[in-house]
């Protein structure tokens, strides 16, 4: 956390541009420095319109101010639906969903991944696809009635290689 100066009771954040520099070096994070905080994204964001706690513009400003710990450990970057409506509307061509994906990747590297993402990632790296458990014989019958092949033939070898190469010991909490 930010170092606590003795005589200063409330812990005020000291602005710094290092976190913003790190993000702008991450693939997808290059555009963050173009943001002029006009708020067009937040006006278009459906998540923002349905919950008080999520404001894309505010999250970007926290990055620009250098609030590294708070942003990386927060759930907010994971609330973006990557629907990209903000990107269509942004006059400065800032790709917010790309930036938040870059923030997620950096957070993951430092061990912050929401449980629901972690579980799904483990499942995909195990089965090679998402709905292995959900494919019961009911669904098989429906496919059979429609004349569709019931053997979906998903490959789960490939993902094991990726798991060993990119996820072993890495993203575990």
């Amino acid at each position, binding site marked *: 956390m930010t170092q606590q100066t003795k005589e*200063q009771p*409330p812990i*005020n*954040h*000291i*602005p*710094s*541009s290092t976190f*913003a*520099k790190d993000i702008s070096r991450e693939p997808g994070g290059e555009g963050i*420095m*173009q*943001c*002029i*905080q006009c708020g067009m994204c937040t006006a278009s964001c459906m998540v923002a319109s349905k919950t008080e706690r999520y404001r894309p*513009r*505010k999250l970007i*400003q*926290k990055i*620009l*101010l*250098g*609030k590294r710990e708070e942003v990386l450990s927060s759930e907010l970057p994971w609330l973006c639906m990557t629907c990209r409506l903000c990107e269509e509307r942004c006059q*400065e061509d800032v790709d917010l969903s790309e930036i938040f994906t870059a923030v997620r990747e950096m957070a993951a590297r430092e061990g912050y991944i929401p449980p629901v993402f972690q579980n799904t990632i483990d499942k995909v790296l195990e089965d090679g696809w998402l709905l292995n458990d959900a494919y019961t014989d009911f669904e098989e019958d429906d496919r059979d009635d429609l004349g569709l092949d019931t053997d979906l033939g998903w490959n789960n070898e490939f993902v094991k290689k990726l798991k060993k190469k990119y996820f072993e010991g890495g993203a575990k909490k």
Partner: protein
Amino acid sequence: MTENNEARIGVFVCHCGHNIAGTVDVKEVAEMASKLPGVVFSTDEMFMCSDAGQVLIREKIKELNLNRVVVASCSPRMHEPTFRRVVEEAGMNRYLFDQVNLREHVSWCHMREPELATEKAKDLVRMSVARAAKLENLPVKRVNVLPSTLVVGGGIAGLRATLDIAERGFDVILVEKNSELGGNVGNWTHLFPSNQSGVDVIVPLIKTIKKNKRVKILLDSKVSAFEGYIGNFNVTVKNLNTEKEEKFEVGTVVITTGFEPFEPKGYYGYGESPDILTLAELQKLPPSDTLLVPSTGKPVKKLVFIGCVGSREPGVKGHEHCSRHCCSATAKAAGDLRDRVDEALVLYQDIRTYGSGHEELHRLARKKHVIYSKFPKDNKPKVTVKKGKIKLTWFDVLAGENLEFEPDMVVLSTAMIPPDDVEETSHLFSLTRSGDGFFNPEHIKLAPLTTHTAGVMIAGAAQAAKNASESVIDASGAAAKAVGLMAQGEVEIESTVAHVLPDLCSSCHTCLTACPYGAITMDVEHDPPVAVVTEAKCHSCGTCAAACPSSAIVMYHSTDDQILTMVEAFLCPAPEAEGGGSA
């Protein structure tokens, strides 16, 4: 002056779209006017100042050979010249026209009382018709315009105006109170949007001016006296060191006295540490490749700019305006200095980098990782200085964060305010001043460079806070206005001057002392000597006429009779026209 022939008055009541007709019953006013003595035509029209309205006046003058016209519309300060020209085009003397203000003085300020507003409109039209009947034909007066200009102030605007005028073949007297030309821009290192410094821009201008034989430069000098009228001003310039005074005669004047950067005492700890300085002071620092902390001489590592210092403060007289140049100047300075420091912050209320190429400066600064943080208007950043260490605490509105920072240097983007001697200048050239203290133009949109003192132009920051490019644009405009007058060689002046009636004058000399312009002297050839007005010097203020104990002085176009008949028309309208007056 033709004697007062029988008045045939045309009354034209304007709707001004809904601006007047929205509150005042213009038809009823026109109907009432048609019954007033001397009125032979009365109508209402959608837009009197439009071509249709002007054509209507000309046609009616010819058709009904009207010899007086009353237009009830907007303020005469706006369209009196327009309608005077229209009646003149129809062969009627311009001084036989009178205008009634039904918009600014009636409909716009009595919107919720239509009946009383209509009644007021009727009274004002009745007053104007009464006056119109007594208006007299006055010859149009012309005076020559001396082919030389006085430019007051040697900043970038003054230099530009001087060069434009001199290059068109007219002499210029350039008066500068400091000991060298260049003004504020002269000592700026960060000019925008081009990468030049102030010196790069100013020095070539000064060189060309010095080479021009038509320009006379008077440094360390101020205008000490100024009289005369358009085309024929006599100016006294005093050298501040030698106290020597020189007199000149000029045809036009361009005021480019510019601004002064606000000394923000009491703002953000200014004065409590040499490391807290204004943007102007930063610009004046000798250019070097490392920015040094004034108190320690070490390189600056952490730099903070604070915007709107002494600007945009509602309710604080002279500080309510936006100084317009600071956002762009701050973005440029922050962008330039960012590479030499570890962190650069800009604390702002709003960002207004509106000029061409200025938004790019803002974007460049952000791209270089200058941190922009917005503070709330009613909770400005706090600066404390302890043992030489500066600490800033503030609330970032955009992130909802309480922030603090310990910068090595704080730069305050302070307001542009009028120079300390602006009062003196305004009295010398009888210029009025707007709410922010700068000089008022004649009309903010229709005549932004001329002033109410005919022949005196204003340009640059003297008129309002603005950046250097806008000042130069003003200067070339004002120069063109001045040259326009001088190229004509002559100009029309008001013929509404004072005139002494010899047989009434008791030569008591009261008027001689009353006249602020010394335009009245004693005519000794007349027996007994009586007062006489040198018309060229008279500014038609009317003080002499009011002072004269024997009412021997007539103010053309504003005679006692023309005034009292309006008072009478309001308070006790003539019985035969109305069939029964009040009280």
